[in-house]
């Protein structure tokens, strides 16, 4: 391009000189400012291939019901002349609008999925149907799928044209399983969650194990299954040192043997002593309805944190316990 500019400037000077020679015969008004010949001439008089005027873009010739997958059969960069949409992209200047699509670099930079319209995908599916087997008729709902196949394995394959067909990303295997489908009791579930740590999502109850330490996909799959088996069996075992679990290790607040229980017991005992009513024993005191309600409110306060609801519940239960109006 720089060479063309250079040659153009070199050519300009002789042309200007020739123009000046003709200037006496040609009046200044009719003298054309640019020394370009008329547009219909393809070849130049001066030996330089001149640019032809731009043709109207292809979009103007497109029918509304055309076959779009043939315009974009594969992933291709965005061609403003081939996409009939009046799309704009860019940060507008003050009192302006985003830039139009012609010559817009932003639209070129981003990935586009113009080759994957629903029509195109339908055609892909039709083509792939010949290679597929039938979906089993018994599995017609999500729950049945989850019931019979609780473990879900995610793998990804990569196809690309290049010097090698192998892709190192293809060895990653993700194993997802819901803990409710595993046979775990309370202690086993808590131990499993502690063992896996971050890999367990509390809101969806899904354990996710992602493996990629082996070079082959098959090996990673075996390793993931092995991990699941080991976790399951280990969580059922109880070790010696688990007996030293302290209050700080507990996942949720446990009322029994907590300081709250001790406090309330002492308070109630003192109240009873003041009223000279020593017949009730510790178990009976703890079993009354008011203490039960108090226990529930304290547990919800500790587990859920403070909010209007829990605090007012706690207040009511304490008032009832201590017999305040």
């Amino acid at each position, binding site marked *: 391009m720089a060479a063309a500019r250079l040659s153009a400037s070199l050519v300009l000077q002789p042309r200007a000189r020739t123009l000046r020679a003709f200037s006496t015969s040609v009046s200044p008004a009719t003298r054309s400012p640019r020394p370009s010949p008329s547009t219909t001439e393809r070849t130049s008089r001066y030996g330089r291939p001149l640019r032809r005027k731009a043709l109207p873009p292809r979009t103007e010739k497109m029918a509304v019901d055309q076959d779009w997958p043939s315009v974009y059969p594969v992933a291709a960069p965005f061609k403003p002349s081939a996409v009939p949409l009046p799309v704009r992209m860019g940060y507008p200047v003050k009192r302006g609008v985003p830039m139009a699509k012609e010559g817009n670099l932003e639209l070129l930079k981003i990935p586009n999925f113009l080759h994957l319209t629903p029509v195109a995908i339908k055609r892909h599916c039709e083509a792939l149907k010949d290679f597929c087997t039938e979906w089993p008729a018994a599995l017609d709902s999500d729950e049945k799928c989850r019931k019979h196949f609780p473990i879900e394995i995610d793998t990804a394959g990569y196809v690309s044209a290049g010097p090698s067909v192998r892709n190192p990303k293809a060895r990653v295997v993700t194993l997802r399983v819901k803990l409710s489908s595993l046979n775990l009791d309370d202690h086993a579930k808590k131990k499993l969650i502690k063992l896996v740590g971050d890999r367990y999502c509390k809101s969806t109850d899904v354990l996710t194990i992602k493996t990629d330490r082996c070079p082959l996909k098959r090996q990673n799959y075996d390793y993931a299954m092995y991990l699941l088996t080991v976790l399951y069996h280990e969580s059922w075992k109880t070790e010696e040192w688990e007996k030293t679990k302290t209050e700080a290790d507990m996942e949720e607040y446990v009322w029994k043997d*907590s300081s709250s229980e001790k*406090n309330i017991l002492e308070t109630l005992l003192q109240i009873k002593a*003041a009223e000279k009513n020593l017949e009730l024993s510790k178990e009976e005191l703890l079993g009354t309805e008011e203490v039960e309600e108090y226990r529930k409110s304290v547990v919800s306060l*500790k587990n859920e944190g*403070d909010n209007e609801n829990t*605090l007012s519940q*706690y207040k009511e239960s304490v008032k009832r316990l201590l*017999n*305040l*109006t």
Partner: protein
Amino acid sequence: MTFELDPGRFLHIGTQAPQCLAAHLDNQVATESPRAISRTSENDPAKHGEQHEGQHYNISFQDLKTVFSHGLPPRFVMQVKTFNEACLMVRRPALELLHYLKNTNFAHPAVRYVFYGEKGTGKTLSLCHSIHFCAKQDWLILHIPDAHLWVKNCRDLLQSTYNKQRFDQPLEASTWLKNFKTANEHFLSQIKVQEKYVWNKRESTEKGSPLGEVVEQGIMRVRNATDAVGIVLKELKRQSSSGIFRLLVAVDGVNALWGRTTLKREDKSPIAPEELAFIYNLRKMVKNDWQGGAIVLTVSQTGSLFKPRKAYLPQELLGKEGFDALDPFIPILVSNYNPKEFESCIHYYLENNWLQHEKAHTEEGKKELLFLSNRNPGQLERLCAYL
């Protein structure tokens, strides 16, 4: 904001002004109602009820000097000095607490009540209202104005004479003892100590001598002040169950007892709160293993250490340890003004000519103040200070 100070308008703010300006106000607003809305003549907290909600009642100067020598928030003290009168608004949380206090069963262990709420909603003043009530009912008031002051900014920490592991704070202890003495003069001669306390080789307090002597000893010998405080607390706790007197323990900012301190030893290692003798004794005081009184507390973020600014809920401020220690307690929420209380507050300021802006008593002005302060008492007071 279109508010600008116009100094030419109202020139004198003295006490003679209300008479001539009351006529001015009377012309503009309904005549007798400003006084009726914002004030009540019932000055005894014991008789305050639902009908007095939103109204201000007067605290006599006598009570101010004795009961509230160290209890009121500093901005309120400035307001009292300016208006030359101390008026407190009767509000629902305080009324609720007074209702509980009136129905306390003194044979049962002391019940703990905790005021909680956002910044500036009136927890300290509600506490002061209940203290005034108890003082009028002739209870013994044990008031710690701000427990946060004890866990920070202490210049001199001495090793405790009583227990080598703990630390003393002589200055704070002696100031507190002086204020305690002014608040409860008449009790100090009645209560007798039940043990002999030896201060050092030459001085000791015999069994059966009045508590006033212990307090005097603490004030005079600043080194033993913290120990004197500890003895006072122990004796009061022991003897309140016997029924001679009723004890009210009022602590503002009780979350300081279980938080962290900013005090350090000489080797720059931090001190835990329980290593301060005063905090240790105070923790024993707010436990509910004694009878014959009540414990009223507030949790506040203002002045607290290492707590986020938006924290106001009891569990957040007390932490796990504090909650377990105070459990079971009655939490009482102190919220912003409701519309009636807001009107009453504005009327009170207008009566005392605190709002000098000419638009202050119009409806628009009130709406603007309502919007700017969101009905928060502390915020409203700060805003009106500029007008």
